[in-house]
């Protein structure tokens, strides 16, 4: 056991810290377009330094770095309150999926513009009738010459309104069992037959959308991982989502926690003190779980079902933390403030997005503990 950084890792952290200090663009502007442009510029700056795809292979514009270094990057970004990256779904899910299952041509075509944020990605998995039971999805893709013709509806599609590419899961074989008839496509969003309608969330923002697909065409070369093999490919995406997000987000939890500590400094209220301490302890538990995951990931392979533990714990913790932030304001919590109102509301989705907490518990029970299926 050794929980210190190696000299090389420390050096990377220091270089990174100095770079962030020099390049930090300041406070994010309000408004969807302005904030998007701001995040894209920030990602481009990072990519010019070679760090947007830190762990990606160097031949695809990555830096070939370790998962530990990726973790350091997340922590330093959070510490410095650096902006989000514009292409977060492409970077954390789309890219890794193409790297794991894509053809050489696909890697050549798709990876570089993900890093440069020239092409933004979104994830078209969920449908109105298929959420947790994702494999029951109905959007269908039918081969017509050298392209698939797609018809159906997706929903909750985050950033679809900015996206060039959509990781689309569609049914190619209606006769096969539900998990075996799906194919993973890369859908070009810039075509007739794809319509994006924003959905306003409880925070008042419209990050996610409805996606209506009516006769859109996807050339066969945009199938990832083989026809009717989409479920396996989708699992890769979801595992990266849970493992990767849990890490990036745990770093942000630490920052929100230290902000809350500043606000609560000196409080005598024993209940608030107890709740704060519990959240602080669970934040450590989450950080350690994430690092422990890295230790096993460093030994090779993809993130396993254990990543579900981190995503689940993060959702519980972030909800407890943001609720405490709101409660600590007392009666002023009835009024909208600049920080905690938004965080509290946004955190309500944490136990739904990226797999609900109930589904994650099913995964832990069945795949980790070996309990019989419900």
């Amino acid at each position, binding site marked *: *056991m*050794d*929980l*210190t*950084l*190696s000299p090389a*890792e420390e050096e990377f952290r220091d270089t990174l810290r100095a770079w962030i200090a020099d390049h930090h663009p300041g406070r994010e502007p309000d408004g969807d377009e302005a904030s998007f442009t701001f995040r894209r510029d920030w990602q481009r700056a990072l990519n010019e330094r070679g760090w947007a795809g830190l762990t990606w292979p160097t031949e695809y514009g990555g830096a070939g770095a370790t998962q*530990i270094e990726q973790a350091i990057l997340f922590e330093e970004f959070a510490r410095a309150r650096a902006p989000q990256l514009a292409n977060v779904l492409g970077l954390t899910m789309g890219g890794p999926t193409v790297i794991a299952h894509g053809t050489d041509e696909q890697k050549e075509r798709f990876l570089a513009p993900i890093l440069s944020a020239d092409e933004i990605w979104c994830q078209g998995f969920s449908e109105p009738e298929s959420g947790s039971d994702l494999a029951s999805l109905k959007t269908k893709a039918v081969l017509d010459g050298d392209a698939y013709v797609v018809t159906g509806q997706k929903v909750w599609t985050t950033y679809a309104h900015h996206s060039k590419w959509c990781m689309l899961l569609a049914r190619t074989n209606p006769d096969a069992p539900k998990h075996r008839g799906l194919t993973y496509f890369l859908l070009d969003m810039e075509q007739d037959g794809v319509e994006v309608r924003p959905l306003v969330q409880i925070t008042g923002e419209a990050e996610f959308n409805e996606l209506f697909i009516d006769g859109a065409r996807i050339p066969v070369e945009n199938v990832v991982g083989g026809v009717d093999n989409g479920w396996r490919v989708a699992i890769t995406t979801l595992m990266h989502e849970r493992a990767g997000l849990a890490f990036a987000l745990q770093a942000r939890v630490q920052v929100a926690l230290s902000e809350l*500590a500043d606000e*609560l*400094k*000196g*409080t005598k209220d*024993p209940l608030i*003190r*107890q709740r*704060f*301490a*519990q959240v*602080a*302890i*669970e934040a*450590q*538990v989450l950080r*350690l*779980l994430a*690092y*422990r995951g*890295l*230790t096993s990931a460093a030994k090779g392979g993809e993130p396993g079902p254990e990543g579900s*533990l981190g995503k*689940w*714990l993060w959702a519980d913790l972030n909800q407890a933390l943001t609720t405490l932030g709101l409660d600590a304001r007392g009666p002023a919590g009835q009024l909208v403030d600049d920080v905690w109102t938004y965080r509290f509301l946004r955190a309500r989705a944490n136990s739904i997005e990226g797999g609900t907490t*109930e589904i994650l*518990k*099913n995964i*832990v*029970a*069945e795949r*980790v*503990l*070996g*309990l*019989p*299926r*419900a």
Partner: protein
Amino acid sequence: MNFELTEDQREIKRTARDWLAARYPIARVREIALDGAADDTWDEVVELGWPEITDFGMVELAVVAEELGASLAPTPLASHWAARLLHPELEGRGTVAMWDEGGTDPAASTMDGPAGTKIAVPAAEGADVFIVTASGGRHFAVPSSAATVEPARALDPTRPLSTVTFDGAGEELSGDHFGRAWHAIAVAAAAESVGVAARVTAMSVQYAKERKQFDRPIGSYQAVSHACAQMFLETEGARNVVLWAAWALDHDPDAAFMAANSAKAYASDAAVNVCRSALQVHGGIGFTWEHDLHLFLKRAEANARAFGDSTWHREQVAAAHL
């Protein structure tokens, strides 16, 4: 950055587990704890060198303590470690007398020197030396000749407790190691709780696979399977935070005390939550004297209150942040 135990640490863990399984199968634990049979392994424990493992390293100590908790071994080893951390030159077998009658703060005895009564003293019978806390953060080493031991009724039958009256004789201990020692003691206790939580989680998962109702294993019902998943989450979380705290006590002094408070708070709660939930998963059988679950539950509940409960340790964490 590496969370893996070293080969040596894994070897220590294996040795501890094998030895404990051989000497303290649960039937033997029951004979000692419930039927009054004598615990007779101390000489062997001394031969294995475990009383001195406190000199070795905190991760090593935590690894053995976890196994100790998982086995419910009714040995006085843990209370001896506590005494030895406070008094490294201790000769013979030691234990710690820290709780004033009616006291609630583990760090604030009002006893004026080594004269007076302490409650809930573990493994007092047969101890050679008592480390006694007194007002002003003082510690005294008191020989058994100056102590009158009155066995008490312990919630946890695997760990006898006594009320001990001290007549005033004893030598004051000096040094600047007490802060670290108390945090190390908390981590060792937390590690025992992890052992309890891990074993009870495994028992519950096993039972949920075997027991059938309505023609299906009960583990196929989410009310049961999600309870098991929750046990697993808390057990894993507790083990990580305990190992971090143990490591920090030897390698990262800035973080160590807060890590230790975090470990004791989280692991105490985890073991208690796991055992209470396990009782529910087991249904009526888990409520019987005959089933072993009550022994684990009582150890978890008692251990959660030893060396400061989770509320007290959380307050230390709050004080460090706020």
